[in-house]
């Protein structure tokens, strides 16, 4: 899979077509908004019974990314679980799978708005992770530099020859990166939404995920 390389606050980073972010110098892989256990939470709250395969699907894509990049550190940028009860309700098979993915590397769960408390799984639970020159947190804060965040699930559309293609995307400017959601059952927020246009500088780029991630000026 091809990647898109760029520099943030002096750190050389790579956008991966899968929606993950890789920092080769630190052998760090970062993914955001896995929303594991989403279908369980919806059913529990009286909603419909969605196909209960999204945790399996998300984990197998994460597994493939780990195999491809063999990182020493994995950072999950928050909203890793759809809520605390969903984390508790994960079937043993998926818990074992996560332990296997964690084996032999440092694993950090950043807290998100969906999963504010610690979960009963291996790894470190942090509110945010500073790692010079970058800082990893769930929701972007104004006036930051070298900030890596998620939360908004940005997506962007391109129209070419009458066909409109919409993909989850990274948003990148000189201050920050906002990651797309990695989880299978996640929607997106169009990047011309005012929350995102307010956060990002005028010269921001959007990088659409897919086999050939490439930047475009962030659509506004």
């Amino acid at each position, binding site marked *: 899979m091809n990647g898109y390389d760029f520099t943030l606050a002096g750190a050389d980073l790579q956008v991966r077509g899968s929606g993950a972010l890789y920092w080769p110098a630190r052998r760090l892989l970062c993914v955001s908004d896995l929303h594991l256990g989403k279908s369980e939470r919806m059913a529990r709250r009286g909603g419909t019974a969605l*196909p*209960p395969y999204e945790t399996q699907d998300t984990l197998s894509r994460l597994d493939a990314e780990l195999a491809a990049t063999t990182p020493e550190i994995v950072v999950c940028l928050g909203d890793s679980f759809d809520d605390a009860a969903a984390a508790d309700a994960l079937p043993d098979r998926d818990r074992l799978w996560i332990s296997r993915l964690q084996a032999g590397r440092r694993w950090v769960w950043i807290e998100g708005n969906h999963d504010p408390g610690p979960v009963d799984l291996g790894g470190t639970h942090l509110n945010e992770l500073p790692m010079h020159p970058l800082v990893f947190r769930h929701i972007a804060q104004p006036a930051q530099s070298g900030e890596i965040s998620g939360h908004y699930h940005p997506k962007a559309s391109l129209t070419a020859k009458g066909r409109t293609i919409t993909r989850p995307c990274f948003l990148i400017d000189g201050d920050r990166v906002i990651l797309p959601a990695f989880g299978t059952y996640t929607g*997106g927020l169009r990047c011309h939404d005012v929350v995102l246009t307010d956060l990002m500088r005028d010269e921001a780029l959007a990088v659409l995920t897919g086999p*050939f991630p490439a930047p475009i000026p962030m659509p506004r």
Partner: protein
Amino acid sequence: MLDRAREPALLLIAPTGGGKTLAGFLPSLAELADGTHKGLHTLYISPLKALAADIRRNLETPVAEMNLPIRIEDRTGDTSQTRKKAQRADPPHILLTTPESLALLVSYPDAPHIFKGLQRVIVDEIHALAESKRGDQLMLALSRLQSLAPDLRRVGLSATVDRPHDIAALLACHPKPCAILQADPGPDPDIAMLRTAESPPWSGGGAAYAIPAVLDQVRKHRTTLIFHNTRAQAEIFFHNLWLANDEGLPIGIHHGSLDRAQREKVEAAMVAGQLRAIVCTGSLDLGLDWGDVDLVIQVGAPKNVKRLIQRIGRANHRYNAPSKARLVPANRFEVIECRAALEAARDHDLDGDPRGPGPRDVLCQHILIRACSGPFTADQLFSEIITTGAYRDLSRREFDACLDFVATGGYALRAYDRWQRLVLRNGQWQLRDPRSAARIRMNIGTIQDSDLLKVRMRGRGPALGEVEEGFAASLTPGDTFLIGGKIVRYEGLREMTIEVSRDPGRKPKVAVFSGTKFSTSTQLSQRILRMLQQDDWPELPDHTRTWLHLQRQVSRLPEPGRLLVESFPHDGREHICAYGFAGRNAQQTLGLLLTKRMEEMGLAPMGFVSTDYATLVWGLDPILDTAPLFDLGALRDGLDGWLAGNAVMKRTFRAVATIAGLIERNTIGQKKTGRQATFSSDILYDTLMKYDPHHLLLDVTREEAMRGLVDFARIEEMATRIQGRIDTLRLCRVTPLAAPLFLEVGKVPVSGAADERLLRDETTRLMQAAGLA
């Protein structure tokens, strides 16, 4: 009607305007006249809210004049909550409603109280309901009503149809019979092709050439309805009509994508006799009495004779005067099609493809509705359902699979033991969480609205209508498009509303509307094929006649029992043109399958285009032996692989999953801000395909796509018809019959990695434009 009032079910067939609705009510008025009946006596169901209100007004007058002690009320989505509550506590004698409002009523725990003593149900425009899932939902609701009120008698009112027995079977409470009462059809209509000074173009659907002749007709008649097959065509025609309307004749436009207020304005002006013409689509096919219409013009080939007859019936609502209609073919081939439709109408040869068994997504919704009203046993519900015509052959296994889906999700991975939607307690199924009834009720119905965005004049101006999200995404500020006959300029998107400003004088884009594109019916296609066998065509205009003779001279005309395939070079490419006469959707599918097969055989196809009668494929190499291409078994194998990732399947899945209750259109306390929380149904489809390919909903989706947009049934029908008799002609250039296909819009390029290539080219271009590359 009064003589047959005791029949358990009765279908009354009468042409449009025959006064059949009031006839349907006569037995009710007679039975209610003595004032002894308590509670609901007659339920009237119409496909249109407006029709329910209209009929109520029409009924109230004679009831008041005769001083009858009868209370009549309507109940639709527009009725206030207070009124609705009062109606449940104290139902009127006659209640007029729609299938969706009835389904909602049936879902309440007090349904037995509301419907106790119900004597009659009248289903109006049943021919229209019978073609859609709304009809299936209605009939399932009636099966429930029949259990609550065993004396219930059913009456269906229908326009002229080809298979009255099919509709009777839908209406009947199986296995009881349904009698059919045919009214005098009245005099034959006066229909002909509209004479025009100019000949129609070779392709396209605009019919701009006929504008002067149409205006001339409008001038000569009191009120003209000008029907179009699609909303886009109606918009273009209306625009052109106004450009030529020098005298400023009052002409309006009416179609389903226009804002309701705009439509109501046009309807009111029409009833008041202020309009000389209305450009319209199927939105005026049903129901209301449009007063003084004395001419119907159909622009574009009618595609389906039954619909043509029903549209013609709109003209002249006096029972014994012939209605008058003129057909305007939009292009040269449609001249032949219109001619064939005229003859079919004269011969009373109506068409209509039989519908398959009752759709299971609607059944799933019915089970949910039943659960909302209280606990039930599977046996009892199953025996109720198989009294419904469309579901009478439903097997217990199929029913159990639907029940399992509703209760547990029906997944191979049994993940929801704790959170089932329905649970079995003491042999009775019930909602695990009674509060979920409210969510289920919010999602009752089978009408699908695609992703539509409202269009509004900038600065809190009036709402104009709606366009599809996909079309909106293709607009950039400054682009102009047509809506409601106005050219507007796209300004921007604001909170899911498209803001526009007025901008006359520029050449507009045409909005994409979600209106259905109809395929020419099997019967009509066959009639065209038979017509092509004549030695000469004195009934056709000269331009078309010469065209057909020329085709016969240089090539051959297609024949009913054979498949004609022409192979010729043109403009540096090789082409084959297959005249399958299978209708637009099937020819489109054929194009996809042929090119896929050519790809596999190393024949380098580059693209194709389809019409109702033929598919044209182009590529690099000449194809002389076409027989292996049309091997049905191989085409079917290709279908399975191709279908899986197809957009048609995803669209069909979305509708099926919404109706079956997997996807909720409406949720409580829905907020605009939650957009990143909702995700597209495509993700669910992909997940199911990957992890649970035999799931019930995928099964239903496949079944529907095969009949609907993919229409493989008609490819099979074609294959049976030709029995391998394929005539491949090698010619040195384009033939007269193939030439119009080169002008068709909607060419489909063949290239697997098209998306990635487009993305790469476009990203490079954008970066360069921004000076970033």
